[in-house]
């Protein structure tokens, strides 16, 4: 029981970290609330599916193409839709919502049923008497590598420094000659890459349908609020706490309650500590 909770909690946490890191990054840097975040997951999963079905590519080639597609789409989204509406927060929310709706309908137009992508990593692994698909191990390892890389990129590299500068004070960053539009676009692209990897690693072995984007968006939302909007360590920590909490609920309390637990956690968190676990206290 404890081993199961730990394993599946880690899996959930790894997935949630990939989903929420980018979401939180984009919000933290530019104050952009990207409701199309879940749609990025959706299109990555479906591009993989289409590449395999229509063109007969192998899984990994399809995965690389789909990641390129999703990063390209995110760059176009930023330039075409988010940048012109940057001044109004509600405008960003509306346009990304409409975009997510558009992607859902686009996917539904071509393949409206539910599909199953065969996991590229076959077999099961036995860990202290618990069997689980090897694909999930790939998810855990992939997530750990990516999260480490992105964290290092943001804390060490020069672009990462500009990202942090913009997130602290956009005006001041502009004054010292940072191209803030470029920085925002980079962070949107990083976020799309992360959510794309989440789709590459988690969608195979699960069913995909046009509506799945909203569920992943909600998860990213939940973790980001829990960990603190715009805080990268906060969203990683929040992801794993939320992951263990939901697998604990699954095994100990009741699986039917587990979808409601994250929502209750969000509400309690918002009421007691609106800035989240590690979030910055916002000034009035």
């Amino acid at each position, binding site marked *: 029981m404890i081993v199961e909770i730990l394993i599946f909690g880690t899996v959930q946490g790894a997935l949630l970290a990939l989903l929420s890191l980018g979401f939180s990054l984009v919000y933290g840097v530019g104050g952009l609330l990207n409701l199309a975040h879940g749609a990025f997951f959706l299109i990555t999963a479906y591009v993989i599916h289409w590449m395999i079905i229509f063109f007969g590519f192998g899984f990994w080639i399809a995965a690389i193409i789909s990641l390129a597609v999703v990063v390209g789409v995110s760059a176009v989204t930023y330039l075409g839709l988010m940048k012109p509406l940057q001044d109004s927060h509600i*405008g960003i929310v509306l*346009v990304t919502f409409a975009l997510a709706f*558009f992607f859902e309908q686009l996917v539904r137009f071509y393949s409206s049923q539910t599909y199953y992508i065969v996991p590229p990593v076959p077999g099961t692994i036995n860990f202290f008497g618990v069997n689980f698909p090897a694909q999930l191990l790939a998810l855990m390892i992939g997530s750990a590598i990516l999260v480490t890389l992105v964290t290092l990129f943001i804390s060490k590299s020069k672009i990462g420094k500009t990202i942090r500068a913009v997130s602290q004070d956009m005006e001041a960053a502009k004054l010292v000659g940072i191209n803030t539009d470029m920085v925002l676009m980079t962070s949107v692209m990083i976020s799309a890459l992360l959510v794309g990897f989440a789709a590459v690693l988690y969608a195979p072995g699960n069913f995909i349908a046009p509506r799945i984007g909203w569920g992943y968006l909600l998860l990213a939302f939940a973790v980001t609020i829990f960990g603190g909007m715009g805080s990268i360590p906060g969203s990683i920590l929040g992801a794993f706490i939320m992951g263990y909490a939901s697998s604990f609920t699954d095994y100990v309390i009741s699986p039917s309650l587990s*979808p409601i637990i994250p*929502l209750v956690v969000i509400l309690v968190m918002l009421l007691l500590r609106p800035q989240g676990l590690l979030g910055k206290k916002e000034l009035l």
Partner: protein
Amino acid sequence: MASLSIDLISMVNRFRVWALTFRGSITLFCLLGLLLVPLTGNEYLTTIIITSMILAIFAASWDLLAGFAGQVSFGHSAFFGIAGYVTAAFVRFLGHHWVIALLAGAGMAVVFSLLIGIPCLRLKGPYLALGTLAFSLVLYRLFLTGTWLGGTEGISGLPRAENPYLVFYAIAGFMVVSLVAMRAIADSRLGTVMKAIRDDELCADASGINTTVYKLLAFMISGFFAGIAGAIFVLDTTAVNPAIYQPLYSFYAIIMASIGGIATIYGSIIGAFLFIILSEVLRPLAAAALLIFAALLILIIRFAEEGVMNPVLEKVQELYDKIRGR
């Protein structure tokens, strides 16, 4: 008594002056066109217009809260849904008249707006939006997994009104009265206070406005009108299920209000009619319909930041003035 009649005369005069202005005449013209719709005998058209009118009330209630008081809510479907459920329960299980049920539903929505408003008042901006979203999602899950009030199936089989004309005119009346009332609130002293809170909460606080009370008041008024919309919606469709709490409905309201123009109230009518009629016109295209609809939606939001109503009206007025040679 004398002063009352003078008031009445001055009101009539003001109405006449307003009706002769550009906006007034267009409004009256559109209203007249709206009232003629059921006389065409086209049942399909009538149904669409009824849906548009109900959603116009709903969108306007969101606009009052977000556009004037600056409290952006993503969970407006909570008010819509709870009023719908209470109304359905009153009619179906307790056998009350629909007017009582409607008032009970709207009253319940006000209670819920307090329940949601009081804890969410500490939150600002996106946090408030997400907090209200979470509330509506919790309600959605509770009604989906719970067994009360019909569980997953919801409540269905509400009595249907026999006279379709009566239904149409009653709903049109509700829409006109609700929107005029909301606009009057927005233009009153209360509306000014709400705008002050929206523009600078700290400053409003410093000038002696009890922001907590006024924000709660804005929540209650908005919840009341959203509740009316929800109750009418359920009475019209004669059924309700947990899907009414979906965030989709909240987003419909937001989209309609912003298509029409935020902080205009009347813009919501334009937004709702445009949204519903567009989605119906595209329906024959089957699978591609929603795709085109979503693309149009992106374009409208992207290029019409102020909404559609005011810019279009200004353009038409310029044209009209040119024709008259002014």
